């Protein structure tokens, strides 16, 4: 085992780790922003509004992330309108294509997590808000969503971990994320064991940090533990 190589590779792997972190963080934020309206549509009173995001969720959960990445990276460029649009400088970049694909993908899962949590808010608590004269939207914003977010956190933490691991697929479209960096080093050194081992440890480290962060957020947001009840 070439420990020296592992240590030597660390700076480059760390740079890859930074890219992975960026991909996950940016997609995570964009995914949540997309997920909220999708989840709200899914719990609408109106059947047709509930139906609108069905295709979106069905497609994004039903196809492999790799296929989605390829569709964005190779697919979009096929359309002349896309190539000629002002967005092309962005859509040409593998980096942004990965972020778009990840954001869409995680938004579908996050929306479903959030929908479940919204529906798990006890109806009595919503009724209490409505009985005090809160309009539906205000009750949603002030009572239901804050409640749902707290209930959704553990499942959402899971989703972030899955996203972190899924982000390894960014390396398939030339990105030097942690996996991409590892692969380029291996291509030169032919030492897959050492390098992937090192990369694996770095992934573990990131997962650990995410788990801690989510647990911290859960504790921050949870009401103090009951001394009774």
């Amino acid at each position: 085992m070439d420990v020296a190589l592992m240590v030597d590779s660390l700076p480059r792997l760390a740079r890859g780790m930074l890219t992975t972190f960026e991909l996950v963080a940016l997609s995570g934020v964009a995914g949540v922003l997309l997920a909220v309206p999708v989840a709200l549509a899914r719990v609408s009173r109106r059947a047709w509004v509930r139906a609108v995001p069905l295709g979106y969720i069905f497609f994004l959960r039903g196809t492999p992330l790799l296929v989605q990445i390829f569709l964005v990276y190779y697919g979009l460029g096929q359309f002349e309108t896309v190539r000629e649009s002002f967005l092309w400088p962005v859509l040409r970049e593998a980096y942004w294509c990965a972020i778009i694909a990840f954001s869409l993908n995680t938004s579908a899962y996050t929306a479903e997590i959030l929908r479940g949590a919204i529906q798990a808010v006890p109806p009595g608590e919503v009724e209490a808000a409505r009985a005090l004269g809160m309009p539906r939207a205000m009750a949603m914003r002030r009572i239901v969503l804050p409640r749902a977010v707290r209930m959704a956190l553990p499942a959402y933490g899971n989703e972030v971990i899955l996203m972190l691991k899924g982000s390894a697929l960014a390396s398939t479209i030339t990105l030097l994320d942690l996996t991409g960096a590892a692969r380029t080093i291996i291509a030169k050194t032919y030492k897959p064991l050492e390098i992937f081992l090192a990369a694996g440890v770095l992934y573990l480290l990131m997962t650990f940090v995410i788990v801690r962060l989510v647990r911290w957020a859960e504790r921050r947001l949870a009401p103090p533990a009951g001394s009774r009840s």
Partner: protein
Amino acid sequence: MTENATRNGDSGLDAKPNVPALEVLEIHKSYCGQAVLRGVSMRAHDGEVIAILGSSGSGKSTFLRCINFLEVPESGAVRVGGEEVRVRRRKTGGHAVDQKQINRLRARIGFVFQSFNLWPHRSVLGNIIEAPVHVLGLPRAEAVARAEALLDKVGMADRRDLYPNQLSGGQRQRAAIARALAMEPDVILFDEPTSALDPELVGEVLGVIRRLADEGRTMLIVTHEIGFAREVSDRTLFLHEGRVEEEGPSGRMFARPDSDRLRRFLASHLN
């Protein structure tokens, strides 16, 4: 509290004793074709306490929930302080009501649930000031001052920063009552406020409600605590299968019930 005194008609020149605080007209409600309320009407004058009795399934909860439109009745109307909400029949077959108007109405009608329904992610204070700040637009400081006065009144001044899961059932219900009172409602509806409580905690909640009655608040109370109902209410409404079976001054109703059903109901509940 001064404002309340005038509104309750104790002293104010603007007291309108002929306009009921709450008027409910001909409420009809059914679930899946099964009629639960078949034309229930009632009126409560300022400061009146009305007990609503009836056996399980007679429609008491449904009736209360129709008054603030947590359930939308098929037909009927509710008037609070001169504002009327009427159920219109939609051409497509449904029943339409004006949501804005209902929200205004709800802000004037307090509702106390059997299961408290406090928001667990908010402290007691947070629960109480939420609607005054966001529905009534009260400045936060004013809402907090109001909440503290109410907490004092329900005997929970030292609990304002606790969360619902840190309270006993009786304390939770008293916090929920304070939350309803913070809107300074014209009428308060209680749906079995003590039924979810351990027997030893019932008294403290009934005590709070009794004090509200003494203050001259207009209240409708659904309860199985027959002794309490008799003692605290001015009038009683006895529901049976979605109709008002008997109605009158509580003293007379409890002493000399007209209907056999009420007589049997009282007999079975008094021991």
